[in-house]
């Protein structure tokens, strides 16, 4: 197992190299002129003569071959320099650093109800297989899984903001923003709701939560449905296993058969999915942050992509892929922790 983890860690840079190279090669399709538009104000751009264009292209090294430019970029990455983001009007590294806490906050809060409720309902559905509860949960889940997040997000916004006026879009109210940006407000973790509590500002905490509920509801709905399905089928498979019968033959009460013998085994595949889900939550924030107009990595990436801000795009891809790979590694370790056959194998 240790060897496996080391192997994965050694493969990590190789995969990141591959990932960035793919994205970098794609930008090659754009051609130097398009690439240049990321550096020059569009108003000025239209007035440039061909000669000026060539000069600028040369100045930014856009006429150099792919490899040269790629290694220049990689070199920058090693020095913490991811380039300049036109969309954010600040260095990409800085832009990402500022936005991570907001996305992290959203993902963290969304995860808790998803994992708890999803697994609980999945087990309940499996135990009551083909009974009313099972059908009800399954239908709920499959409808949830079929509901596109942006459609559901719009509905949430319509109901909870337009009609009821409870949960507004955005990241925080403007009065709160003023306080947060003032020097008295200490930033301990950069996660707004936690910092608000640490500063003793319950009003700001409540404001942050109010802005979070809509997005959390939107994201968790989808993943919750998904996790439930996986838990149910995994649990059903395990309940048919012989060792469950052995436990019953020992006289173990049904409650323990399910929650001790079966669930521990059923959780093994669920961990993989739950992990993939946490990773999915991070990238799922793209849509939600756009709909709810929240500050965060997702919206930043979406904006960067639509505006061909390719330095920012590369930086974001690097960020997301790193999270994804490390996330998968953690899943594998968790997997091993649950399954002694792998841990000791």
């Amino acid at each position, binding site marked *: 197992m240790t060897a496996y983890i080391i192997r994965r860690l050694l493969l990590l840079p190789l995969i990141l190299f591959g990932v960035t190279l793919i994205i970098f090669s794609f930008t090659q399709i*754009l051609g130097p002129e398009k690439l240049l538009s990321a550096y020059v104000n569009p108003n000025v751009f239209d007035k440039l003569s061909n000669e000026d264009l060539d000069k600028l292209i040369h100045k930014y090294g856009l006429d150099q071959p792919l490899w040269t430019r790629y290694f220049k970029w990689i070199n920058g990455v090693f020095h913490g320099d991811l380039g300049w983001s036109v969309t954010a009007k600040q260095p990409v590294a800085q832009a990402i650093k500022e936005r991570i806490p907001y996305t992290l906050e959203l993902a963290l809060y969304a995860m808790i109800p998803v994992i708890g409720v999803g697994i609980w309902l999945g087990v309940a559905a499996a135990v009551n297989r083909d009974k009313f509860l099972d059908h009800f949960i399954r239908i709920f889940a499959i409808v949830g899984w079929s509901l*596109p997040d942006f459609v559901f997000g719009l509905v949430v916004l319509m109901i909870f903001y337009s009609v009821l006026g409870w949960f507004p879009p955005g990241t925080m109210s403007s009065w709160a923003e003023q306080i947060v940006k003032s020097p008295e407000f200490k930033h301990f973790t950069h996660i707004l709701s936690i910092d608000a509590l640490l500063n003793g500002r319950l009003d700001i905490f409540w404001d942050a939560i109010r802005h979070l509920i809509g997005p959390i509801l939107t994201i968790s709905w989808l993943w919750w449905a998904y996790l439930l399905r996986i838990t149910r089928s995994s649990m059903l498979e395990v309940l048919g296993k012989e060792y469950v019968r052995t436990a019953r033959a020992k006289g173990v009460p049904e409650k323990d058969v399910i929650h001790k013998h079966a669930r521990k085994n059923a959780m093994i595949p669920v961990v993989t999915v739950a992990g993939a889900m946490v990773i999915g939550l991070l990238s799922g924030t793209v849509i939600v942050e756009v709909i709810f107009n929240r500050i965060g990595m997702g919206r930043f990436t979406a904006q960067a992509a639509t505006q061909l801000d390719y330095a920012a795009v590369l930086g974001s891809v690097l960020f997301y892929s790193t999270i994804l790979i490390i996330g998968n590694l953690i899943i594998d370790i968790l997997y091993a922790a649950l399954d002694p056959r792998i841990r000791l194998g």
Partner: protein
Amino acid sequence: MNTELKRTLRKLFKNPSAILGFALLAFFILVAVFAPLIAPPINPLFPDENGNPMKLDDPYIMPILSWSSDPVPPSKDHPFGMIAGRDIFYGVVWGTRTAFKIGLIVVSASTLFGIIIGSIAGYFGGWIDEVLMRITDIFLSIPFLLAAMVLTTILGSGLDKVMIAMIIFGWMATARLIRANILQVKEEQFVLAAKALGIKNFIIIVRHILPNTIFPVLVQATMRLGSLVITAAALSFLGLGAPIGYADWGSMLNYTRNYILGSSGQALAYWYTVFYPGMAMVLFVLAWNLVGDALRDVFDPKLK
């Protein structure tokens, strides 16, 4: 074989949710096939020389019927209402065709690609497998939506670009599934028996291995179809897919989101702008998921 088929069908239709799925799917197929009859591709505002309404050059471009940009509530002529001067009903009907087009093309192309990669990796093993699987890992390490988003932007927006992007980043799950299945089937005795008979590798893969691994792949493809349509719509929603005015549920929703909050004092004034295209999409995806779920129950109870 006939009894086997009957058994399978009986199992398939035992489940009420499966019946619902197939019924919904049949409904959408009918809508797509008969779209020209349900919503004729004509522009009544522009009569041709005979006084008949003019035929549209491209039926997927929704004709502009009114110059008012505010949404118009449902009426007899426009049962789903109008937005940006275009008939929502028309968009929903022709959007069905768009959804099928996106789903089927992307799923079949990416599945085929995945089958090829997965078969080669699984059957030959060794360094070929190692290299192909590491490439798969790399492609899997970019979140799908993000990858599709970036590639679409680079290729330039448009539905065809969205599809290309989704194919390029959509084959990995199939490749992995096929590879895992082949590794399993490869050890089956009938494959060894075929080898003992001196049958060639290619024939062994195509005749003996693939037919035994294809059902889980088909189930997976069905279940993926729904989520691919969602992703395509999400890209349109982000402004990267079909242009405004194209009969596509995603781009319609992108446009209508501006009206979601209603007008002052009337929160739900423009509900129909989101409801109809949104509902069409939900039902479409639901149909595929229900069908996929039913197929999974029948063909591979263990597949997740």
